[in-house]
């Protein structure tokens, strides 16, 4: 499959390990990525200020993807995926807003065509590539590892919008992890939010939410927490030390993007997967895998 890709701000500016691992792993599963001509915001932070402008930005991403001539758009960020989905929905349901958005796009010589399927890492790998192909392609099964998954919020809610997995009982990310040979655990806090959206208004509370989830995870003895959203990755991995300071607990949970874990199972070099960029203590995990 050849698909356009929209990375969003968080991945391009700081969650580079996610981007690196996707760029390494996808070609091995016969997915070719085509970057858009422009890197722009999806509209997510603008929603709170002006919902119309957010929908305009979301529609603009689709229009940019249309320029590639492809009919698939891969959006690896939960928040971008949600914002663009809501923009599509608004254009479908609200004629007045749709007309005005199209007028504004025209001023830049852009044209909106909704006939493009949006994918996220989870459904692209689970529904399109498929577990069977992943099982067959991996070179180094990750046996004997206990993993917990964190799917995030906006990629599974709300169902009326069309999301990639069940809103209350998501299972696809766990199945993807098990396809690599690892074991997955269920835990009570699985659906708890990482808090990243509160960074704009209540940064300490945002850290506190992420910290309390990590604290709960620490009691169930896992080898790693697996994420698939750059905002969740930022909170649980890059900011893990800050969350520990805020809640006053020592935390040492290895956090990996699913695509990084998949890359390890495909026996791709650690540095090419950006594993040196993870801030959480992943050394023991990597040692356990290569042992």
């Amino acid at each position, binding site marked *: 499959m050849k698909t356009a890709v929209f990375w969003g701000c968080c991945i*391009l*500016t700081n969650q*580079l390990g996610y*981007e690196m691992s996707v760029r390494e792993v996808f070609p091995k599963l016969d997915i070719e990525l085509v970057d858009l001509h422009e890197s*722009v915001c999806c509209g997510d*932070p*603008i929603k709170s200020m002006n919902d119309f*402008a957010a929908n305009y930005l979301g529609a603009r991403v689709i229009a940019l993807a249309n320029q590639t001539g492809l009919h698939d758009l891969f959006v690896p960020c939960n928040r971008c995926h949600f914002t663009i989905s809501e923009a599509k929905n608004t254009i479908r349901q609200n004629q007045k807003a749709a007309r005005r958005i199209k007028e504004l796009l025209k001023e830049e010589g852009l044209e909106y065509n909704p006939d493009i399927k949006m994918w996220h890492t989870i459904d692209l790998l689970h529904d399109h590539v498929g577990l069977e192909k992943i099982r067959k392609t991996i070179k180094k099964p990750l046996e004997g590892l206990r993993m917990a998954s964190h799917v995030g919020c906006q990629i599974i809610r709300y169902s009326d919008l069309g999301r990639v997995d069940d809103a209350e009982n998501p299972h696809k990310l766990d199945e993807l992890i098990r396809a690599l040979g690892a074991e997955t655990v269920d835990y009570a806090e699985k659906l708890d939010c990482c808090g990243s959206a509160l960074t704009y208004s209540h940064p300490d509370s945002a850290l506190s939410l992420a910290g309390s989830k990590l604290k709960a995870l620490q009691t169930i003895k896992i080898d790693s927490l697996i994420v698939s959203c750059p905002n969740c990755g930022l909170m649980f991995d890059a900011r893990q030390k800050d969350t520990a300071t805020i809640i006053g607990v020592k935390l040492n949970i290895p956090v990996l993007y699913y695509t990084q874990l998949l890359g390890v199972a495909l026996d791709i070099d650690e540095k090419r997967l950006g594993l040196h960029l993870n801030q959480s203590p992943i050394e023991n995990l990597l040692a356990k895998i290569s042992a």
Partner: protein
Amino acid sequence: MSLVDLMSMATPNFGSREKILAKLCGREIVNCFQCIKCTSGCTALKLLELKPHEIMKLVNLGFVDELASSEIIWTCATCLKCVQRCPQKASPYHVIVALRNLAVEREAKVPEGYLKAVSQILETGLAEACRKIVTRKMEAVDREYLRLPEVSKPKESFQAVFMKAMEEKP
């Protein structure tokens, strides 16, 4: 000041309520029957005492001006559980977004982070600035060093059209 205080001290303004309803385009908040499913699952309730069902009731009673100038509307973590679980499709999250938009229109106090995002988008197209990041061994690296493609910029025309979009009042 709690929201209950806001209710007992203020007079409802149904004109402002209409503005919120217009922004919600079709989401029937009058259908809210206060089952409190939204509040019982609310992420922000744990830390910041956001009670979405109270927001729904206050909007329905016309206390919109008080909410638009209150800090409580900026505590939502946008986890969307309330939208998912509302049996009446009244969607507290969308009501909170509409209240935030109204607060911005009225130039009420908006958290700094959002204003920064807007100026960053105007400057580079992205809501965050590209920066050097550090490896686990504290080595500073950037995209070029990691052999990642350069981040492309939006067209010149982007800024002006984005400003136009920001001035729209749906």
